């Protein structure tokens, strides 16, 4: 079922390194079931396999509600898998790991903490001294372009600025695995592509392995080394595509690239059927409900 695009993709020496290290993330035959409030069982993921190498940027696309986010909660250790193994850096996940960063879909910055205290939260939770954490916090605020906003509260910032705070908050722990759950979906289109660009710049600083969940195919191709298409729920991997666009990329302009257009068409072919299945299901659900 797995098709690989980009046959002329030359492996850089950096990519060759992947072959020696254990993968940053490895899911083998993972199934996740939830008990529904009505007493039934809902299967979110079914025998899903996913492998993300260290330093690799992997985007996961799929129709709405297919279980994309569930994948992230399993990798982060927030939820255990029902069946199968989840490994991070070769070790089975048993709880929340130290090496994980998570950027949530909705605002998850602490509204009662100032911008600086929000960014310092991770190091403080992990027992670093206040002055030490604040020095690191100011450093990261500078990197995300928020110097001068240290003492503001989140509600005084725009949506894009709050996302920067969330990014700095995650990255300050220097995670080797960064999980992102539709992080920019609440932003307007322009802010979104600016943030995507900045994400790439920040990613380049520490090069964590990234799993970026999105329903926006354009965003996925523009950012990632690899795009994984999931089926309509219960989700499993339908196809994986290598994105061989050169880096550094300019997110706002890359969509005009011929190669980008070709990839988009190819991946959309795989995604379209799943989107239609998911839509048909939600439409019948609405009919049954009414």
């Amino acid at each position, binding site marked *: 079922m797995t098709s690989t695009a980009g046959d002329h993709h030359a492996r850089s020496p950096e990519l060759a390194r992947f072959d020696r290290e254990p993968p940053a993330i490895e899911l083998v035959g993972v199934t996740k079931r939830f008990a529904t409030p009505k007493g039934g069982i809902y299967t979110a993921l079914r025998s899903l396999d996913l492998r993300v190498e260290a330093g690799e940027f992997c985007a996961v696309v799929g129709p709405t509600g297919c279980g994309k986010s569930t994948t992230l909660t399993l990798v*982060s250790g*927030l939820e255990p898998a029902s069946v199968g193994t989840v490994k991070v850096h070769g070790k089975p996940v048993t709880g*929340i790991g*130290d090496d*994980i*960063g*998570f950027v*949530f879909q*909705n*605002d*998850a*910055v*602490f*509204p*009662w*903490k100032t911008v600086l205290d929000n960014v310092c*939260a*991770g190091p403080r*939770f*992990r027992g670093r001294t206040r002055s030490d954490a604040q020095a690191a916090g100011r450093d990261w605020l500078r990197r995300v372009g928020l110097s001068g906003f240290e003492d503001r*509260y*989140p*509600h*005084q910032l725009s949506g894009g600025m709050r996302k920067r705070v969330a990014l700095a*908050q*995650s990255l300050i*722990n220097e995670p080797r695995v960064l999980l992102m759950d539709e992080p920019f979906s609440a932003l307007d289109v322009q802010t979104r592509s600016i943030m995507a660009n900045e994400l790439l710049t920040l990613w380049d600083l520490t090069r964590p392995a990234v799993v970026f969940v999105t329903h926006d195919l354009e965003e996925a191709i523009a950012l990632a080394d690899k795009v994984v298409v999931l089926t309509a729920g219960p989700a499993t991997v339908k196809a994986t595509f290598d994105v061989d666009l050169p880096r550094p990329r300019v997110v706002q302009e890359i969509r005009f690239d011929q190669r980008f257009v070709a990839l988009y068409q190819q991946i959309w072919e795989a995604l379209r059927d799943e989107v239609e299945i998911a839509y048909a299901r939600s439409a019948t659900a609405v009919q049954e409900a009414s």
Partner: protein
Amino acid sequence: MTALRTRSVPTATDEAGDIFLADAPPRRPSRFRRRLAVYIARLLLVVILIGGWELFVRLKIVDPFFWGQPTGIASQIRDWIEHGTVQGSLWLQVEVTLEEAVLGFLVGVLAGVVAGIALGRIRFLADVLGPFIKMANSIPRIVLGSLFIVAFGLGLSSKVLLAVVLVFFAVFFNAFQGTREVDRNLLANARILGASRWKVTTQVVLPSAFTWILASLHVSFGFALIGAIVGEFLGADKGLGLLIRTAQGTFNANGVIAGMFIMAVVALVAEGLITLLERRLLRWRPAQLTGPEL
């Protein structure tokens, strides 16, 4: 009228004829006038109510023996201030009642917050204690006052305990609810950032539940006062409650109402202090109230 209208225009016109806003914050005469109107209306209401009361007494429509009389109440308060009450000076009575109420309030709030958060965070505790708490809450707790007077005597502790019991439940249920309604995203985020369970409780759950807890403080200080006063009714040697009861015993309606009035002033001051505390602690929150404020 014309003068008023020209003054109330908040914008000015520059040489090019464009409308611009002045650099200094624009004066808002309309807002000022609105507040003035509110104060005038309040004053009017007081004058009508108290004046009408006095008038009806003087016209012999209302019997002051049962319902008191504003001038009588005023002279009663003056008498208490100048000559003291039968139980000692008026300030001592206020001080005693306030001490009971404040102590009861502090202990009750502390216990309510701790218990609410503990039960909200630890499911096992909530499951075990849930029915007992519901049962305790359904008892008319004022009755416990009689028990406390018998057990702890006429002094401070029986009133404080009654106030604690009244305050505890109001705060407890709010703290419990607030704990359960913490945004799951915030909890997940804190855990991933490396917070231990204890740190999640103190740095995420507590501040997040604070909105709920602070809302309950307004009601609970009222409860604390009720606890202190009722405790004094049931048996005491000092305090405003005893003062009111003594007045009741001598068929002194003016004395009862004067005691009520003093209590109301104390409660208003306390309410103001709690609002100040609320503003200070909830600085991080955007101003979101759009409706009228009480």
